[in-house]
């Protein structure tokens, strides 16, 4: 039996992956730009952190092997960049929790698109937002005496996107199984902030206790931070002794992003079986 109003579209890779990924991605960006408080919210607190802690530490901080005049504001700059990207990425995934049960995502989940497109759209969206915020903060670098490395800017943009992608995936992974945003905030304080604290953002791993060193070594955020330090700080100070070379950091970041993308797609693919 045929229907009187047949659906005109056939399932192709373009229809079920490319087009929906693009549409969900652009939606994230447009939404974000329309909510000015989100733009400011994710920038303001890290910048305040950076300024207060950086100015407070002043010259009492001295990293091993760093040249004279290397300030804590400079040391802390890549860490703040990381925090801004973490905040932006995480906040972009909180909406999943409510959106899925009573919001825009209901319609996305019941559409015939590939589940990977749902995840890809969200992660690329979150990564783009992180990139935008990171670039805004990067523009402030010269104020602290860190030059903007114009020549390697395309590489830096790619690095920002890669870090943002991984962090958004981490947020997605936490947000997807949750029922309430309160739960998300609890996990954020319990897992995500400590993950950032133990990435080497606040203090160099060299002087830390052995177990802290191990946590830092196993922490994917550490590799994002090491890569950022390499491209931003190396022109003014010697690289951190414990930082891995750039290619290893980027390799770990890619592995992290791809693995999480796989897990997120798997999670999304399972039809939910909860009480309505």
């Amino acid at each position, binding site marked *: 039996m045929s229907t009187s109003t047949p659906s005109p579209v056939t399932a*192709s890779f373009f229809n079920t992956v490319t087009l929906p990924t693009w549409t969900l991605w652009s939606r994230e960006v*447009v939404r974000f730009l329309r909510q000015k408080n989100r733009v400011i919210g994710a920038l303001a607190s890290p910048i305040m952190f950076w300024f207060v802690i950086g100015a407070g530490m002043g010259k009492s901080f001295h990293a091993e092997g760093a040249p004279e005049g290397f300030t804590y504001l400079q040391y802390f700059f890549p860490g703040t960049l990381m925090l801004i990207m973490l905040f932006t990425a995480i906040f972009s995934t909180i909406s999943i929790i409510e959106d899925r049960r009573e919001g825009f995502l*209901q319609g996305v989940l*019941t559409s015939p698109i590939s589940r990977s497109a749902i995840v890809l759209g969200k992660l690329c969206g979150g990564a783009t937002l992180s990139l935008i915020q990171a670039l805004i903060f990067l523009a402030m670098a010269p104020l602290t005496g860190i030059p903007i490395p114009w020549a390697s800017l395309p590489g830096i943009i790619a690095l920002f996107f890669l870090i943002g992608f991984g962090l958004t995936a981490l947020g997605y992974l936490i947000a997807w199984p949750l029922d309430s945003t309160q739960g998300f905030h609890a996990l954020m304080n319990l897992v995500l902030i400590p993950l950032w604290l133990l990435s080497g953002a606040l203090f160099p791993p060299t002087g830390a206790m052995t177990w802290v060193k191990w946590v830092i070594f196993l922490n994917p955020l550490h590799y994002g931070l090491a890569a950022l330090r390499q491209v931003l700080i190396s022109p003014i100070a010697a690289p951190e002794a414990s930082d891995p070379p750039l290619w290893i950091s980027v390799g770990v970041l890619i592995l992290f992003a791809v693995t999480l993308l796989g897990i997120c797609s798997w999670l999304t693919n399972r039809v939910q079986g909860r009480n309505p």
Partner: protein
Amino acid sequence: MTTPAFLSIETLSHRYGERLALDRLSFSLQQGEIFGLLGPNGSGKTTLFRILSTLLPLQDGTITLDGISLRYDLAGIRQHLGIVFQSPSLDKKLTVGENLRHQGHLYGLYGRTLAKRIEELASKFKIDDRLKDKVETLSGGLQRRVEVAKGLLHRPSLLILDEPTTGLDPNARLELWNYLQEVNQREKITILVTTHLMDEAERCHRLMILDRGLRVCLDTPHKLKSALRGSVITVQSSDATALAGQITEKLSLKPSLVGGSLRIETPGDQAESGPKLVAQIVAAFPDKVDSITLSQPTLEDVFIHLTGRRFEN
């Protein structure tokens, strides 16, 4: 009936842990009909809706839409379904046009084809002058219209709606139903709608009443009501229980106590029996009757008749 069912649901059961929300439910829809699913909260209709819309897994039983099995071809079913959720699924920060474009992209529509389809639906639902407005600036009734337009964008063969008029004022409700009936007639789209409102249920071609996961009855609203051929007398009294006993004793009637008031169904074969009985009850218990009404049976009466309970939980 000789025509094969368009949507066929067979022995569908669903459990949440120990609780059985749907119990071996079977029914089918013919192409082109408006089918109503009526039931109080907890009747299982939302569970049924969520399984049909592919948000909940199919645990037990089969669902087939136009020959496509929901168990084996989720994407195929999704392409054929238009869905209007009870809670808004529009992005309020985006404009009406942007919402519709995103929806089109999710169903593989783009470019000129999509623009033409949006234009067509916008004019049908009279939202063409609001396409550039953000959804959050629209009234509740208008937002619902956009939701329905969104559900119809990819020309689904079955439109399912979960209590689509929730939160709307009576005028907006009426308007939405007029749109649904028009879509059903002009585009020959089969519609399945869940509701807990009796007056909406009466607008459906066929109606299934669901209670505690079980099918209570399925028929046209007219036939369901004519099963109660007589009329219904409702008596309000400060001491309804005592009055019930006295009515049984004196008038040999069996009133039922439903939601604090007494309810008597009069025999359908005696048209005059209703007014007569009212007069008899008032004459016999002048002090005990606070108020008394005589009415034609409604779908609510059908529900009470079949389940022994009022429709509200």
